[in-house]
């Protein structure tokens, strides 16, 4: 579109169109949309205002396009759902109509209003008016902007070599992209490699996995980095700089996996792969089908761990001279455009449940240990033997939901796979030892998937007894090590006391202990159960909120092999789309500088997490490297001279929003600042979950809490706001590396200032809330209700005076 039109958009009087969406009854149910629209029409620069049922519908969008042309709209405001959901939709609409998409603004009157004030139509409507007013105020100051394009490296990093990681890596590699597959363990394969059979088809798990594993091993496009960990991730979508720590194997690629070294190794220990049910040596391969097949030395146990080669038996035994004790940890640096997180899950450790005596009674085992026992390649050669006497049990009991759906174990969620896994296991036993009596104690049997119900029926037909109601306690016969299961059959309403030779605890899946580390490295969010949080549960189920990062497998939530593989292919496809495009546009939210005001103090350079600013002291000039800029705006917040601001989140725009909030009844309101990634999303989450909280808060969205400069807070108080809430991502989870550290500093500074001036610092609240912590956000707003109510007029007045200076800045 022509330069001159852009010019026009800049210079012309703003002509704003406002569209208030009913979203069916989602909004209209508790907000009087017509009234809001009517109110909007009274606002300055608004030339058109209407309410409609579904603004996001084609009809709604077409309407906007039409109006832009007919009414020469040069600004558009849609009051509907969260911008995190539909801002892209309406920006596109504007663009289609030839309007720069940065001239669009949204008022979130659903997640932040109608859904959280379901039962107070009046308050809801009033709040919605404010939200629209804020949006209009900001809109009138919006400026068109051109987005810069960043090239996307056509290489992908896959973290985790379980079946999900394997599938994602293969799909990406087959598409023709270079893939780095990083696996912590010495071999890829993950949990699936340890399972005997898969449900419902009863395939031999490793038999179907092994070919995929070796494909990975041989694929020309895949760099397989096993025994390695991602140690650092810098950069942004399309341009991630990743450091991978490659721990030494002490065995070189020359290893032919002949196993001679193992025979002579004097170190014998429990093999983790078999959950310790079999032994391995100090130099070993975790299992026969391991990829890479190269052996590895367990340096924690090796006699040579102190750097002195005390024992050289393996060195001597190795014809290929592949043993090398001089290997040192190496850090490999790779540049990738996309990242697939397939880090998988841990299994629940039932030893924290004393009633089941796991770890105390030898014949109480976990379903994972069972998999190894029943596996032909396992420690017992596929003979189901019980640990105490290695006899084949006659009566076997399975206990479901161990570490699932139980507050007691701190795992309220369903682990998704245990029911079918137990059914499969019971059939395996029946297959080999048909006379075995099998009892399954359950809460509910969830056989929801394709072919699952048939398998369930088969089990019942074959005489597996399903008893509803988990045992309250397991007791052991000290002599025979047989077990008694005592509990209530909740169907028959009677107490049972069943004996068994062996009990298998069907343990659930839980988030990996190290997923917090991954979360920090990649600035991701996790839900309350600790699993990684997708960008949108329905529409973007494999995307992370952070651009260029995708999820596959149990890292995102417990799922079976089929779902993991499906999700992996989806993640690969999503990553592939980005890399196929070859470039991505970054939002035009980078800093704008006003050199004439710059005093060359260099503060902005100091606080920039991306080193995207450089200062020329002599020329008193700060230059911005836009590609490097993450767009947090903390530089703008730091500048005391207004020499720097963030486009699309300019001081004027934010101040306009503050002023809009505080124009009326300021003393009953809270000016809330939320960061786009965590706290704003958290507020959305509260809305989605229909968590109810009082209506005193008005949320101003910034990309990062680091954008919130003290002068915004001061202005809010200067204009008589009852309270101010600043909220952002948890420290360490900041999506702009560590910009929220500045937030902390600034709020501390404000608190000190308020104290010094005899103001109640309670009126300024700081909240760290993740996107998953809707409840935490709601609670905060509830708690602040009392603060808002308690604040006395003289206090308001005092604050007005103390911060009066903040008003001059305009």
């Amino acid at each position, binding site marked *: 579109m022509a330069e001159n039109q852009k010019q026009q958009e800049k210079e012309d009087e703003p002509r704003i169109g406002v569209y208030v969406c009913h979203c069916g009854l989602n909004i209209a149910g508790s907000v009087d949309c017509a009234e809001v629209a009517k109110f909007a029409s009274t606002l300055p620069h608004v030339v058109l205002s209407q309410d409609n049922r579904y603004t996001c519908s084609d009809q709604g969008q077409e309407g906007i396009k039409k109006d832009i042309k007919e009414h020469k709209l040069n600004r558009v405001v849609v009051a509907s759902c969260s911008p995190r959901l539909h801002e892209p939709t309406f920006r596109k609409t504007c663009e289609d109509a030839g309007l720069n998409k940065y001239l669009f603004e949204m008022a979130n009157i659903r997640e932040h209003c109608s859904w959280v004030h379901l039962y107070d139509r009046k308050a809801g409507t009033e709040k919605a008016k404010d939200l629209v007013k804020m949006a209009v105020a900001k809109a009138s100051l919006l400026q068109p902007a051109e987005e810069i394009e960043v090239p996307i490296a056509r290489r992908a990093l896959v973290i985790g070599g379980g079946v999900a990681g394997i599938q994602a890596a293969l799909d990406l590699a087959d598409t023709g992209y270079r893939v780095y597959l990083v696996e912590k*363990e010495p071999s890829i394969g993950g949990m699936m490699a340890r399972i005997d059979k898969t449900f419902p088809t009863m395939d031999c798990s490793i038999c179907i996995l092994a070919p995929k594993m070796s494909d990975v091993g041989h694929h020309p496009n895949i760099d397989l980095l096993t025994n390695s960990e991602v140690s650092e991730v810098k950069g942004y979508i399309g341009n991630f700089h990743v450091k991978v720590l490659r721990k030494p194997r002490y065995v070189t690629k020359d290893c032919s996996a002949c196993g001679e070294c193992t025979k002579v190794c*004097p*170190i*014998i220990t*429990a*093999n*983790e*792969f*078999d*959950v*310790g*049910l*079999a*032994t391995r040596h100090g130099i070993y391969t975790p299992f026969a089908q391991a990829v890479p097949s190269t052996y590895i030395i367990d340096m924690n146990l090796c*006699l040579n761990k102190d750097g*002195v080669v*005390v*024992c050289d*038996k393996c060195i001597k035994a190795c014809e290929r001279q592949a043993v090398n004790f001089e290997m040192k940890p190496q850090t490999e640096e790779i540049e990738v455009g996309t990242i697939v997180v397939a880090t998988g899950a*841990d*299994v629940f*450790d039932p*030893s924290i449940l004393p009633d089941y005596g*796991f*770890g105390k009674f*030898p014949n109480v*085992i976990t379903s*994972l*240990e069972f998999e190894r026992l029943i596996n032909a390649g396992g*420690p*017992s050669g596929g003979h189901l*033997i019980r*640990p105490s006497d*290695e006899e084949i049990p006659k009566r076997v009991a399975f206990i479901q939901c161990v570490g699932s759906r139980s507050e007691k174990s701190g795992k309220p969620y369903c682990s998704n796979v245990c029911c079918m896994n137990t059914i499969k296991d019971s059939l395996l036993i029946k297959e080999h030892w048909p006379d075995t009596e099998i009892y399954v104690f359950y809460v509910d049997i969830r056989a929801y998937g394709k072919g699952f119900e048939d398998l369930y029926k088969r089990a019942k037909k074959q005489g597996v007894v399903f008893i509803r109601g988990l045992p309250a306690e397991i007791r052991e016969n000290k002599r025979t090590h047989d077990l008694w299961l005592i509990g209530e059959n909740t169907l028959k309403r009677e107490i049972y006391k069943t004996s068994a030779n062996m009990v298998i605890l069907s343990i659930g899946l839980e988030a*990996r*202990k190290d997923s917090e580390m991954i979360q920090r490295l990649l600035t991701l969010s996790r839900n309350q159960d600790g699993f990684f949080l997708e960008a949108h549960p329905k529409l973007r189920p494999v995307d992370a909120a952070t651009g260029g990062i995708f999820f596959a497998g149990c890292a995102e939530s417990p799922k079976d092999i089929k779902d993991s593989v499906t999700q992996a292919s989806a993640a690969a496809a999503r990553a592939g789309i980005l890399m196929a495009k070859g470039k991505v546009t970054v939002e035009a939210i980078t800093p704008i500088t006003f050199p004439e005001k710059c005093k060359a103090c260099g503060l902005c350079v100091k606080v920039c997490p991306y080193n995207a600013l450089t200062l020329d002291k002599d020329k008193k000039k700060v230059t911005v490297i836009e590609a490097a800029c993450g767009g947090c705006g903390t530089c703008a917040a730091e500048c005391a001279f207004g020499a720097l601001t963030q486009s699309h989140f300019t001081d004027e725009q934010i101040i306009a929003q503050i002023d809009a909030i505080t124009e009326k009844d300021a003393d009953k309101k809270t000016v809330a600042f939320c960061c786009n990634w965590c706290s704003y999303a958290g507020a959305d989450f509260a809305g989605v979950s229909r968590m109810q909280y009082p209506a005193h808060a008005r949320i101003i969205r910034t990309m990062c809490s680091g954008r919130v400069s003290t002068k915004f807070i001061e202005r809010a108080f200067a204009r008589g706001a009852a309270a101010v809430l600043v909220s952002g991502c948890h420290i360490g989870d900041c999506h702009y590396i560590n910009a929220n550290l500045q937030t902390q500093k600034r709020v501390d500074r404000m608190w000190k200032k308020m104290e010094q001036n005899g103001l109640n610092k309670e009126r300024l609240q700081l909240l760290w809330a993740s996107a998953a912590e809707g409840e935490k956000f709601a609670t905060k707003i509830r708690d602040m209700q009392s603060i808002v109510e308690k604040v006395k007029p003289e206090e308001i007045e005092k604050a007005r005076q103390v911060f009066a200076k903040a008003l001059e800045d305009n």
Partner: protein
Amino acid sequence: MPEKIRHPPIDKEKVQQAQAEIHLLKDQCKGCGYCIEYCPRKVLEESEEINARGVRPPKVVDNSKCIICSFCTAICPDFAIFVEEKPTRKTKEV
């Protein structure tokens, strides 16, 4: 693998370490103490007796701890110690 190990290995009997036979040529020992210091399993310690050279040769504290790495044999400057597998109990093939 993150799981805690709760049950002893089923095959632990079958992979028994071979028993060591530690030979001390006491009177050749000059008492440097290398074998004692660098034994990875701390099988040896200084004995109370005084040998022909007037030093305290090492003595075996716990034969069962020895895993026959033979580092003592290799580092002894005086050819005063060597270790063999006890012929009676050989390692069973696993």
